[in-house]
């Protein structure tokens, strides 16, 4: 009863508020309020005349969020968030990335509580959205205006019914990272532009690395076949499973043909991505390039090669920039603290300070037009990256990036393509690998054609 009263009061206030300020977007009022504050003072204040009615900064409660991110970065980000939302406590519960989907699925099946804020990695977001557990953020009271988002990011947070089920904290125009000392020895340059011009096609890579040696020791272009997969597959906006039909021959085969060619030319090392020795390989000088999304720099390379300061750079991959990974925040449909949860999400996605913070600590580029259009917003010269302004690099080369549409079966894809890549490593042809993947997919999901 009490809840009902509160709810109707809130709704009433909200309607009045909307009429009063003529602004239907709560996030915007919060964001503009604090961004104007931020420009004058380093501490953001939250008072805004426009925000009185739908002021989510007044929201209170404890927001539970499951995540696999770096806890130290999150702690900093949450402390910063609390300067604007003092009454919202964010409880970040670490869950191993390997267990994340399992934990969500079990909770859904057993009808136990989900976190108020769900982190959706792009690899399983399609599956997550299909489960009907995420709040449509475009609805009142959140009124998240999707036109604020970069058009490219839209397919990543909307479902087929046009609901906005998440707010993206990351957009990942990705390139390739390289070790400067190695390119200097091999090609007498460590300039990202020169390297990008030198490697316009995959054949250029093969030609340059076929017999590449440093001090008499063979060096490789890439560490894993999976690098090539993420790059080339990243160019392709099509989901490999469409309307219940497996489209691997159309979507994957051309990618796998390139991978096969590269593998057989012997320019790819034999690591498996995410294995301990792969992590270790970033501290060595055996492999020049690595597929590198913005998050990848802070999440993998910098911690893996702690002594590599100044020895790394980022450039454009042969064939251009691609999309790799990405996180969005969603609100659990049955959360009891939706307002507070939205406060957190809005702050992370729409507030200038929140977005800036997320960029400086984790190199996350939040795909909101307001910030993306602001020159130099996502810009930061990095000593670790040899003084290169990597953020700006990603921004400058964003135009060619295409984004895959989400699909219900996305959760099955990773395990599947990794098996296909192993086939290539065993010497099979691209067609054989793809056939193998089709068979494997049908085995796992019998209803697919």
């Amino acid at each position: 009863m009490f809840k009902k009263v509160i709810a109707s009061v809130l709704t009433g206030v909200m309607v009045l508020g909307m009429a009063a300020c003529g602004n239907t977007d709560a996030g915007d009022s919060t964001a503009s309020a604090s961004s104007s504050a931020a420009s004058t003072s380093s501490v953001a204040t939250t008072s805004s005349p426009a925000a009185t009615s739908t002021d989510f900064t007044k929201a209170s409660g404890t927001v539970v969020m499951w995540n696999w991110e770096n806890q130290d970065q999150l702690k900093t980000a949450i402390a910063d968030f609390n300067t604007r939302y003092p009454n919202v406590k964010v409880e970040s519960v670490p869950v191993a990335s390997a267990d994340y989907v399992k934990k969500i699925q079990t909770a859904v099946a057993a009808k136990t509580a989900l976190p108020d804020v769900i982190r959706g990695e792009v690899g399983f977001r399609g599956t997550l959205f299909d489960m009907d557990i995420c709040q449509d953020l475009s609805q009142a009271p959140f009124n998240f205006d999707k036109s604020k988002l970069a058009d490219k990011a839209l397919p990543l947070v909307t479902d087929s019914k046009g609901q906005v089920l998440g707010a993206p904290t990351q957009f990942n125009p990705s390139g390739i990272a390289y070790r400067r000392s190695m390119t200097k020895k091999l090609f007498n340059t460590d300039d990202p532009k020169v390297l990008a011009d030198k490697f316009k096609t995959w054949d250029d890579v093969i030609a340059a690395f076929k017999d590449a040696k440093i001090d008499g020791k063979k060096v490789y272009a890439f560490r894993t076949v999976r690098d090539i997969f993420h790059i080339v597959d990243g160019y392709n906006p099509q989901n490999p499973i469409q309307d219940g039909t497996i489209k691997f021959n159309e979507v994957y085969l051309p990618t796998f043909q390139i991978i096969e060619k590269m593998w057989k030319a012997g320019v790819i090392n034999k690591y498996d991505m995410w294995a301990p020795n792969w992590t270790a390989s970033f501290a060595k000088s055996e492999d020049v390039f690595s597929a590198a999304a913005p998050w990848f720099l802070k999440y993998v390379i910098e911690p893996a090669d702690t002594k590599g300061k100044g020895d790394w750079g980022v450039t454009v991959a042969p064939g251009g920039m691609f999309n790799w990974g990405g996180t969005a925040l969603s609100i659990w449909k049955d959360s009891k603290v939706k307002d507070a949860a939205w406060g957190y999400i809005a702050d992370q996605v729409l507030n200038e300070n929140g977005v800036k913070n997320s960029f400086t600590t984790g190199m996350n580029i939040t795909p909101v037009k307001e910030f993306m259009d602001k020159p130099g917003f996502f810009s930061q010269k990095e000593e670790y990256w040899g003084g290169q302004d990597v953020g700006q690099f990603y921004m400058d080369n964003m135009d060619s990036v295409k984004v895959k549409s989400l699909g219900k079966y996305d959760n099955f894809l990773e395990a599947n393509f990794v098996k296909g890549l192993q086939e290539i490593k065993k010497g099979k042809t691209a067609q054989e690998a793809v056939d193998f993947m089709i068979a494997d997919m049908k085995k796992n999901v019998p209803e697919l054609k």
Partner: protein
Amino acid sequence: MEQSNKVYSFILYIFLAVCSIIAIGPFYLMVIMSTYDTNALFTDLHLLPGNNFMINIKDVFLNAGFGKFYFNSIYIAVLTTVLTVLVCAMCGYALAKFNFKLKKTAYYAILITMMLPTQLGLIAFVTEMNTIGWTDSHLSLIVPAAANAFAVYWIRQYTVQGVPTEIIESGRMDGCTEGGIFFKLVVPFIKPALGSQALLSFMASWNSYLLPLVLISDQKKYTVTLGLSTLDALYRANYGARIAALVIGTIPMFIIFLIFSKSLIQGITAGSVKG
């Protein structure tokens, strides 16, 4: 005679030493690895301790909050152990020393339960825990675990041989209650079986991973194994800290083993699996 004895014992010692080294070796290297930073771990094989242990430990306890996980795991394991031993000892005793109608059925039910894969009813189990409000509660890890078919079988086998029926009969003569007979007369006889079961139960509870993973979502209630799994998120590439945490997480097992290992051997020796 004396000579060949010496040679023989020399061979014995060499063989046992080799086996011990193989058994301890990986764990030893793990301890050594916990004393280096990550870069050093990957660059060379280390056989002697480095000097990064305190830094790794600091990471584990201060940043990852392992102190709390430790406390949770210890009290969950202790309570589970006590409850398991109590519940299963009573059941094992009933099966060993009484004759009653459903005895055969009950015994076979226990044997069959031993053969069931432990993950069999997981989803239904979690749903059930949710219905009775035990998700995110340590009760869900403690109470259901107490019905341990293996423990019943183990204690029953021991009781059959280890407890003279005359003792029970004389207890009845003296007018003891049935409960009194069990706790005062029978328990002292089956202590080794209870001790060995305590060791196994403690270990099982401490190692349990899948159940806490799907049942516990409040970080304050995390157990050590859950904490260990999330180090992947905390320290993506900090293998030094991750391994230090693993070492720390294993130490209680050694302590428990040293306490109960005598019981374990006695428990086996005195008849539980003998013919």
